[in-house]
């Protein structure tokens, strides 16, 4: 398979979006902490938005607001911007839902742990949630 450097340089923005997505994927599959997994998901979503916005480009730049007497050739692709907008809207919901599931998971773990042994002090609960150390 021959990857021409020309192809990469031409589509450098796409390649950067792929790299950012890999960073997010790394966080999702390699980190044990659920909060960090959620952060990885958000990074992956952002990389897809970046990719779509870059794909909407026409020429070396473009407008999306038309003025009287505009030339259609100077406008960006509105479809990709619209898709990104809906995606941002939904990513807020996904983030909220996954964080709430993390909170529920942790509180269940804590409850089952406290029934097995005597309940101990819980001062570092936020730190444990962040670093993913099992209680």
């Amino acid at each position, binding site marked *: 398979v021959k990857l021409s450097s020309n192809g990469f340089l031409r589509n450098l923005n796409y390649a950067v979006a792929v790299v950012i997505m890999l960073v997010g994927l790394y966080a999702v*599959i*390699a980190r044990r902490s659920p909060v960090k997994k959620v952060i990885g998901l958000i990074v992956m979503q952002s990389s897809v938005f970046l990719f779509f916005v870059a*794909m909407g480009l026409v020429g070396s730049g473009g407008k999306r607001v038309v003025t009287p007497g505009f030339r259609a050739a100077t406008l960006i692709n*509105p479809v990709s911007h619209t898709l990104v907008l809906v995606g941002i809207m939904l990513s807020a919901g996904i983030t*909220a839902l996954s964080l*709430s599931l993390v*909170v529920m998971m942790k509180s269940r773990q804590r409850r089952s742990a406290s029934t097995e042994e005597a309940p101990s002090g819980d001062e570092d609960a936020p730190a444990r949630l962040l670093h993913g150390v099992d209680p």
Partner: protein
Amino acid sequence: MIRKVAVIMALALVGSALLYAVAKMPAMGDAGAPDKTYAMPRYVERGLEEAGNRSIPNDVFLNYRAFDTMGGVLALFAALCATMAVLGRSRRGHSLAGPDGSPVSSSTMLWTVARLLVPLTILFAAYVSLMGVNTLGYSLQSGTIIGGAIILLTLVFSLLETTRRIPPGFQVALESTGVLLFLGVGLLGVVLGAHFLTLSIPGIAGRSQQAGRAVLMYALDLGIGLCAAGIITSVVFSLMGEGEVEQ
């Protein structure tokens, strides 16, 4: 160690496949690429006259594809419902760690700056929402700006104080207004004798038709913004309330 190797191999596999696809894609900015020859010409050339907004993504978002946007708003609302089902709506917050009950340590300077900043932030959100109709910006962004202001308020003055200012009843109203506004505008089309989400008022013509369409599109836009503000506020209250109960 094996885990690390497996992770690196998986990343290399996915990355090389994606980078190969990216290198084979049409050049960035190529006007002849398939995504720019199918739906785009119609939107770009006739968006202003057909949908009536100078910002073409606004036209697609709120008029051509308003049905899909409604699906997005309903999905957001469903996510909010699921979050509420998992966490439960927080009761009125009760005081936390510090003597003043705020998670951030108290300081007169912090309080003063936050009190100055929050109203200005909400004013900025109103500006973004109003200017977004014809320029760059959407109510979605203004909704998230309002959410940011409320997060600041909750961090600086405890959850107790913020839920006193924004009571649960008002939160419920804020969450459901967006969806109801969207459905209301959609049903208005049916009531007036056209289709669901038509965004036109049959029987009147010319300039008043355009003005009516602009008002309806702004109502949809405002609905999305209110939905975003509602979900951010409720989720933040729920998550922070959960922390208070845990401690």
